[in-house]
């Protein structure tokens, strides 16, 4: 036989191969990466996904490289912008029909991107040490966050469709409480690099934690006498006892992180010196400047955040009749602290209604239980002193059109002024960043950084409230981690990129009006039980002192709670080729829109789930079952956009399926998969 070699080029590189080789074969063997979805070496070509396109430079035609063989003298482009664009478009077309949840909505909602489903699953199995390890990959302060987190995850939990969300945060609290004094991370040897961190609050601590896990030592400075930042000086004892916080912080010291208190930037420390004396600097100075009410006599009022700070250091004594202005979490901390200090009457004045309050619903609920009165649609106009009393003149408001925040704007009602009498008035209407000298700031006064890396300039990074404005602990630790990863990358100690991840979602339970039919149940034992109840101390103990309001839940309750989790995320989230290629090629999940198939998922087989909504019709499974397994149990049905893959006549996989799993191994998107997640 005449076995002449074929000479051709891919991206200008010359090759000579025997006939019969495809362009993809040659590219793969020579380190040229071409993405594929429908290609499997085990079966005859499917030539369906068209993600592996190359351009024949001579004819101008696009060829599927998995099937096209090079011709003599051929020249093929695999990396030009035109080819990349075609591949990206193929991926975006597939994304436009693909339905699933790359990640569970709880993880997407979590600012720290904690692997919620995974630690809840570990908890369900009673493996709380494992749960803690998963939690600490993203949440280095689980004892604190397990107590004070506003639970973004639970708000997006799909369990909301049928009832109350899974009590996710309680998993953190239990796992952390169980192992706080026995668990220690495996610490890599130190690289000799050292980072200065300003601020021992959540952001600074998180940065130090993840730097240490990356082999970098840190030196944290804090202007306060004790570390913890807002955890210690902002959050009241009854929500986060100082003893708990001390235990959590002790862990950082055990890890070898230096924390030096009583050092203030600008006074005791100079930014330029830190920047030159350390390999990097992280500013995590927080957001401590109280916002003004812009009312006459404002100086007669306490400032919420300051007042809490004082009470966190030792109590002020009974504040008498107390009026707190504001509707956020700081306002709730103030009213509930006032109750505990023995105030005979505590009122919260807020200019909109309860529905618009930024405070957490549970805080409002517990404040009401403790006897706080709420005065809605009420805005302060001026404060004056009359004898020993403070008089706050207020104005009635009514709700107008929605403003930029989406909440309806309060509008004054003319002639509705009235007075409220009080002994103490506390303004808790927000905080702003007091950026130290030398930092560039945004219009709002926060420190300006590159949002991908948290880098300000040179080797100076920033994280936490000081770049975002007053936010939550979990957001602060997310920022701290981001700064740490950026520094590790800068120091050449990690490959982790601020990678662009895509997320396909079946939709938000509320915004997309999901029903039970939209939920995918992989396990047959997903519990429909009610959400586990909080274990609160008696009301009299709550109103008479600063004892922690809630107790850590019991293991058996948390394990049962874990059964309620639906486990929304994709079974293939670690190895989905569509996701991988889409991220590589910068494909967007939204650039191409349109209808999606409504063909549902098939969970009739005990071990294998078939999710037609994920299926990209590549045809591999059909051919695997026919050509490799020799069973021919799957086929392609219908035409056009309604094309679907399944067993004949819409039946479940028959008993002749040996569960060999070959289709599952080869499915690029997890449309066919084992039901049970590991």
């Amino acid at each position, binding site marked *: 036989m005449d076995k002449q070699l074929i000479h051709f080029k891919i991206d200008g590189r010359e090759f000579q191969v025997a006939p019969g080789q495809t362009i993809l074969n040659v590219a793969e063997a020579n380190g040229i990466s071409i993405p594929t979805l429908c290609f499997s070496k085990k079966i005859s070509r499917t030539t369906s996904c*068209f993600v592996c396109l190359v351009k024949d430079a001579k004819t101008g035609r696009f060829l599927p490289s998995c099937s096209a063989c090079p011709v003599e003298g051929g020249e093929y482009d695999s990396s030009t912008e035109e080819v990349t664009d075609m591949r990206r478009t*193929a991926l975006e077309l597939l994304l436009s029909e693909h339905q699933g949840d790359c990640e569970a909505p709880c993880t997407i909602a979590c600012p720290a991107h904690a692997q919620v489903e995974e630690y809840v699953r570990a908890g369900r199995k009673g493996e709380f040490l494992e749960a803690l390890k998963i939690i600490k990959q993203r949440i280095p302060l689980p004892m604190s966050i397990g107590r004070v987190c506003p639970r973004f995850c639970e708000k997006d939990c799909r369990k909301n469709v049928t009832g109350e969300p899974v009590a996710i945060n309680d998993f953190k609290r239990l796992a952390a409480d169980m192992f706080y004094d026995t668990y220690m991370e495996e610490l890599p040897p130190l690289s000799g690099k050292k980072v200065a961190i300003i601020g021992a609050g959540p952001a600074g601590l998180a940065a130090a934690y993840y730097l240490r896990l990356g082999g970098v030592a840190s030196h944290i400075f804090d202007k306060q006498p004790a570390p913890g930042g807002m955890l210690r000086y902002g959050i009241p004892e009854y929500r986060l006892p100082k003893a708990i916080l001390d235990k959590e912080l002790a862990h950082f010291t055990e890890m070898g992180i230096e924390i030096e208190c009583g050092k203030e930037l600008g006074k005791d420390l100079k930014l330029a010196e830190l920047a030159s004396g350390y390999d990097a600097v992280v500013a995590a100075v927080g957001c401590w400047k109280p916002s003004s009410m812009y009312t006459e006599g404002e100086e007669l009022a306490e400032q919420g955040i300051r007042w809490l700070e004082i009470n966190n250091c030792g109590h002020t004594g009974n504040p008498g009749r107390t009026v707190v202005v504001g509707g956020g979490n700081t306002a709730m901390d103030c009213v509930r602290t006032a109750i505990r200090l023995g105030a005979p009457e505590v009122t919260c004045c807020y200019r909109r209604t309860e529905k618009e309050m930024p405070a957490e619903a549970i805080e409002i609920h517990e404040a009401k239980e403790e006897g706080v009165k709420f005065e809605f649609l009420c805005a302060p106009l001026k404060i004056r002193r009359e004898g020993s009393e403070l008089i706050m003149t207020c104005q009635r408001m009514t709700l107008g059109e929605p403003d930029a925040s989406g909440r309806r704007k309060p509008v004054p009602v003319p002639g509705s002024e009235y007075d409220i009498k009080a002994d103490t008035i506390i303004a808790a209407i927000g905080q702003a960043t007091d950026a130290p000298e030398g930092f560039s700031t945004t219009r709002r006064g926060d420190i300006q950084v590159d949002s991908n890396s948290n880098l300000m300039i040179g080797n100076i990074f920033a994280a936490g409230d000081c770049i975002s404005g007053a936010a939550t602990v979990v957001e602060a630790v997310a920022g701290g981690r981001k700064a740490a990863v950026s520094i590790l990358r800068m120091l050449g100690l990690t490959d982790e990129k601020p990678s662009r991840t895509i997320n396909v979602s079946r939709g938000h339970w509320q915004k997309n009006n999901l029903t039970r039919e939209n939920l995918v149940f992989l396990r047959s034992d997903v519990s429909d039980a009610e959400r586990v109840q909080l274990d609160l101390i008696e009301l009299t103990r709550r109103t008479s002192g600063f004892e922690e309001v809630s107790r850590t839940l019991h293991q058996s309750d948390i394990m049962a709670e874990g059964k309620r989790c639906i486990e929304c995320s994709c079974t293939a989230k670690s190895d989905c080729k569509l996701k991988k290629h889409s991220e590589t090629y910068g494909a967007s999940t939204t650039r191409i829109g349109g209808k999606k198939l409504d063909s549902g998922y098939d969970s009739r087989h005990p071990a294998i789930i078939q999710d037609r909504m994920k299926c990209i019709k590549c045809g591999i499974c059909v051919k695997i079952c026919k050509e490799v397994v020799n069973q021919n149990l799957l086929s392609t049905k219908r035409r*056009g*956009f309604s094309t679907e893959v399944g067993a004949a006549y819409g039946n479940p996989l028959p008993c002749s399926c040996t569960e060999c799993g070959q289709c599952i191994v080869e499915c690029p998107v997890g449309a066919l998969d084992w039901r049970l997640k590991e």
Partner: protein
Amino acid sequence: MTISDKIRKVRVGTASCGLAAGGAAVLDALRAQAPQLDIDEVGCIGHCYAEPTVEVITDAGSILYAGVDASDKAISSILGLGDAYRFHIPEARAQKELLKVLKLAGRINPVSLEEYMANGGYGALKKALDNTPEWVIDEMKKSGLRGRGGGGFPTGMKWSFLAAKQAEQKIMICNADEGDPGAFMDRSLMESVPHQMLEGMLIGAYGTGATRLFIYCRAEYPLAIKHLKIAIEQIYANGLNKINGRELEITIKEGAGAFVCGEETSMIASLEGRRGTPRFRPPFPTDRGWNGWPTSINNVETFGNVPLIIAEGADAYASVGTAGSKGTKLFALAGDLEFPGLVEVPMGTTLSEIVFGIGGADPEKVKAVQTGGPSGGCIPKELFDTPVDYDSLKSLGAIMGSGGMIVISNERCMVETARFFLDFTHRESCGKCTFCRVGTTRMYETLERIVAGNGVAADLEFLETMGKKVGKGSLCGLGQTAPNPVLATLRYFRHEYEKHVIDGQCPALQCNNLVDVYISKDKCIKCRLCIKNCPVNAISDDFVVDNSKCTRCNTCIEICPKKTIARAKKGECNCG
């Protein structure tokens, strides 16, 4: 009833078109009234607008009757050679048409081998068998015949590939899966002269050494299949299938209706009993076709041309047509014209001659013609002087396709036209390739949005870029050509798209969401017909149309005796 004694023979058109128009009843009535006459069923003469047709053969020549029915008036006129219902082929058509392939269509009994042979049938096969297979291939090459299914690949060359193959089995397939909406050339030929195409196949088998013949015909053509089956039995009975020392088997495979099965690799998959989806070429079917054997696939009309070429010789055949496209071409004329039907004209005839001349379309009212069906493109009236052949149509962004020609009047919206064709192709995608399955769907959704009045300017760019990408990134002809109607309308009628997305108007006043219906009161005679007939009670007692209720069903417009009701651009009419 008087029956003229001059009548020698009566032919009634009972192809599908004739039957649909009532030909069977006419036939029954004629036979009942004149049992003594020789009354024959024949195929289609191509004048669809004139069906049912009856041809009366007399010693003095033939007389055509058209638009007849089974009434005594019609039957007595026919049998008495009266003037009523007499039909004269329009002058323009008589001049331009050149009946070669269709010469016997409607003139002989389709299932009579004797009549076919009496008209020279199977003479070409005999001539071929008297020569060598190489001579056949040579003649085919010299004739310049190009595949009539749409691709336009030289038939002689395709056959020479098959002929060159040394294989135990070689396969020849007739593609009779005519799936384009508006195309009916192949059906008509199979129904009217089934032997002509079969003779072409047998000649092909001789030339190429094919050992087995298939006809892949869509199941929606029961009459064609019936006639083919009878003709094949006649071939067997007369030993006409003895070629190269074998008795060839001719198998009819009825397709289940998937458009994509007209694509050759899908057709082979379907013939093999698999799902009809295309595969990557090469290998081409002439290398690896049905069950792995070398296979040639040719279209019905292509095979229909073969006996002509062999009979009259390649040179005579090639004397008709243009430099790159030889012979005649059948066109199925449909749409907004006076004389829809099947026509046969020499390659190189201009679109004007076909559309205005033969089709009788009003030049004032026509704006474009769509050639090549849903895979083709539209050509605006300004370019109607183009001579029709494979290459000229391609250069205009349309294609010859199998020969569907749909005339589009000014009253049709080009966006809606594109949407209509894409509705077909996006459903008919086999669902395999990403660009075709999802890309055409996204384009279709975009067009739907535009005709519904919800389009945005960015949609046009999306259609253009996605259209090009779908064309480049699809495996088979279906996907590669599916965007053509969109790209061609965007090329020639972009202003219509822009009117929709920028001004919220449909210039043709076709898109219901972008028009209002109004009554101009000055001419209104207050007959109340519109009010009485409006199905949604959208017209008030003082003759004002409530456009929020109106469904744009056109009932009032059609029923108004004074033509005072019309469509207008949305919001532009304050005629109250």
